[in-house]
């Protein structure tokens, strides 16, 4: 038995090592996100979109650098910072130079710091961090670094665009802000207060509070407060089960205004809201799905649906990540020198198939793009989510949102 334990350890560890030898010619992107546990659904959907995008946009078109393919290597971080750092090390050892991650700003924060330290300590095996969904503003402000690129609008930009749309509704007099008790939730609340104060000083913020993240079983008491406050609208940054719980509970318990939010589509949430959320839930996103922005996008979505009938393209920015990365690699003429690739990514302007231009702002590596505010509905929906017949229909667009927003980032380039 003793021997067995040791043998299995040897073989297990050599698996880790051995994997690096195979497929050396592919450009590999490590996808480090939860694939098991409570957040697995979001992670898995993201992985499918990455795999599809790499295959459809790069490999089927002959690859980059004259025939090199993209390969997505999935690592399950179980949404744990510790596991993420272990998997990051494993990925680096496998010779992977591009790390994609999006779920949880906490994990993103751990990764960006670890990557900065790694790149400082190991100039020979530097890696880039492609952040496709972690939206804590700090990542492109005080915590920014040269290796981190954010392809999603940050919480401030999203709120800026959301409040632009909200401000047009003259009948709205009272707003209730509620969010999860962590950095993102706090960032959303702060941005909402600031933006509303600037755009609609007459609007009264009747509530501003945080609830424990992922722990609230029943949102009824919160809904009661919201209803009692006489709010005309709710602003929340909630996601996952917290979004669903809050939204359903508020509607059920007598709240009759709109709910402005960030993440209330796909991953079963659209289906679960169904009829009850129709016309009530308004969310900020980028990329036009309904109506579809371009014919190219329509073809992409149809191909995706053929492959994943139960899947959604709910993070169209993932296609931008792949598109921009392949463009940058082509321009740099190498995939191994990540500094060269990063320099290409900085300041890149890219025409997204999902509509509009996207621009990677060089001073903080924050992407700037058109932001849409859509409504949860079953009317005029070409591409629904969760096969529910419901989807998000774009009502208004803010072009190149927050192009000139300030940043505290002090970018240090190698």
């Amino acid at each position, binding site marked *: 038995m003793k021997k067995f334990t040791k043998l299995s350890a040897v073989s297990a560890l050599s*698996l880790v090592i051995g994997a*690096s030898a195979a497929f050396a010619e592919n450009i590999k992107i490590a996808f480090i996100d939860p694939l098991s546990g409570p957040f697995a659904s979001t992670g898995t959907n993201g992985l499918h979109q990455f795999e599809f995008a790499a295959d459809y946009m790069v490999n089927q078109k002959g690859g980059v650098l004259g025939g090199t393919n993209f390969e997505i290597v999935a690592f399950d971080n179980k949404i744990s*910072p*510790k596991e993420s750092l*272990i998997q990051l*090390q494993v990925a680096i050892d496998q010779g992977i130079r591009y790390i994609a991650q999006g779920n949880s700003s906490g994990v993103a924060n751990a990764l960006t710091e670890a990557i900065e330290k790694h790149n400082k300590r190991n100039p020979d095996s530097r890696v880039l961090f492609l952040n496709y969904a972690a939206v804590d503003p700090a990542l492109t402000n005080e915590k920014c670094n040269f290796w981190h690129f954010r392809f999603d609008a940050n919480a401030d930009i999203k709120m800026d665009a959301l409040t632009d749309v909200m401000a047009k509704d003259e009948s709205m007099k009272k707003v209730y802000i509620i969010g999860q*008790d962590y950095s993102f939730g706090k960032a959303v609340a702060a941005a909402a207060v600031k933006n509303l104060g600037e755009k609609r000083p007459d609007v009264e913020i009747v509530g501003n509070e945080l609830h424990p993240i992922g722990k609230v079983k029943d949102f009824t008491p919160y809904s009661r407060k919201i209803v009692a406050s006489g709010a005309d609208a709710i602003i929340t940054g909630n996601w996952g089960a917290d979004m669903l719980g809050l939204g359903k509970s508020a509607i059920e318990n007598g709240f009759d205004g709109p709910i402005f939010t960030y993440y209330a589509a796909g991953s079963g949430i659209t289906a679960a809201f169904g009829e009850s959320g129709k016309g009530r839930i308004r969310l900020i996103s980028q990329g036009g799905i309904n109506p579809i922005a371009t014919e190219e996008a329509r073809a992409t979505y149809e191909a995706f649906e053929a*492959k994943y009938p139960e899947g959604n393209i709910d993070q169209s920015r993932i296609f931008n990540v792949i598109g921009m990365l392949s463009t940058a690699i082509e321009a740099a003429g190498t995939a191994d020198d990540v500094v060269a690739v990063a320099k290409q990514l900085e300041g890149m302007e890219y025409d997204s198939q999902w509509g509009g231009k996207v621009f990677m702002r060089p001073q903080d590596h924050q992407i700037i793009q058109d932001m849409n505010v859509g409504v949860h509905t079953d009317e005029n929906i070409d591409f629904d989510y969760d096969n529910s017949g419901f989807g998000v229909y774009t009502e208004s667009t803010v072009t190149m949102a927050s192009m000139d927003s300030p940043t505290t980032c002090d970018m240090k380039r190698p």
Partner: protein
Amino acid sequence: MNDELTTDPSKPSQRMRAGSLSLTLTPWIVAAFLLLVLPFVFTNNSAITIMNQMWITVIFALAYNMLLGQGGMLSFGHAVYAGVGGFACMHIMNMSDFFAMFPLPVLPLFGGLFGMGLALIVGSFSTRSAGTVFAMISLGVGELIAACSVIIVAFFGGEEGISGDRTYAMPFFGNEFLQPIDVYYLTSFWVLLSAALMYLWSRTPVGRMANAVRDNPERAQFLGYSSRWVRFYSFVASGFFAGVAGGLFGINYEILTEENLNTASSGVILLVTFLGGVGFFFGPIIGAIVFTLLQTVLSLQTELWAFYVGALFLATVMFFPGGLAGILMMHVPAIKLGKAGGLVRPYIKTLVPALIGILGLAALVEMTFHVRHAATGDNEMTLFWTTFDSHAILPWIIAIGVTVVGLGLARATLPAMKEAWSEANSVGGKL
């Protein structure tokens, strides 16, 4: 990988006379040697990172077993002591002037002291009784402190946690601990030291009485010992070593988050310790090594890793409540009788087919999962280094065949193995 430590704490080493000292030292020397050479066998950074993680878990699991195995106290919130020790270390790392005054290898000591400090406070009321009351207080306190981690942002840093940079410490003989391998030797030093101290602890009067109180608190009372104080001392010592593990975590990852405190981490360490075996000092060491491998390596291979781990735990608890260490130690009588050799052939005859059968079963599970959840048209799957079409009938027939034949053979040869087992343990056996 010091699973060579086969010293059984339930049996006192009565050897006091000179000469036998080398015998008790052997496993430690072997362990130290292994710790030293392992990085030369597994040279890449990820293997070293995984080994670091293993040694940290080893310390934590051994500390946990001071409570569960040796003291009979079931804790549902032990992660908080490791976590608080770790957070304290991160704050020390960020106090640049103070941190620059001493070398990095000393840092875990501070972690230990902070873990111990918290254990002193909590232990003062939680160790009054063992059993359900202790378990539930540990659960309550664990939840409380885990919840505080997002509320008391000044100390715990909210959900982002607290991060720092280990390289700002005073260089230790010129080493700034830039690379995982430097940290590896630091961690190895501490794992050896902590394991040795915890082992020695079990041989001290208060360590022996911890066992006595676990088995029969009332009798211990009538031997002049307060069960409560004996438990309290074990609890505080366990808190110290948990804090050391937390400090090492801080050095390795340079970040601590809510994850280090929450009840899931506390649950994991309970599973790790139990998987290894609570009855033996070296049990948790095996548990920590096996579990870390499962968690980091198996999860790279399959999405369903948690499913297998859950099944493994159920099987262990149902058939081998002594854990992996218990399975190893079951063979000691046969080895002492010189009859262990007779077991090899029956083992091969039963266990190899059983293993193949289980792998076949796993293949079926993976294939079902693939058919159910993979993308439409994506019929190709890779399993055991072979790629095939999961919608074709042949792979299914093969997998079912392998499963049935493997498990069938194992079942057929099981009586022979049982017979060999009783044979190896009978005649001349002590009991």
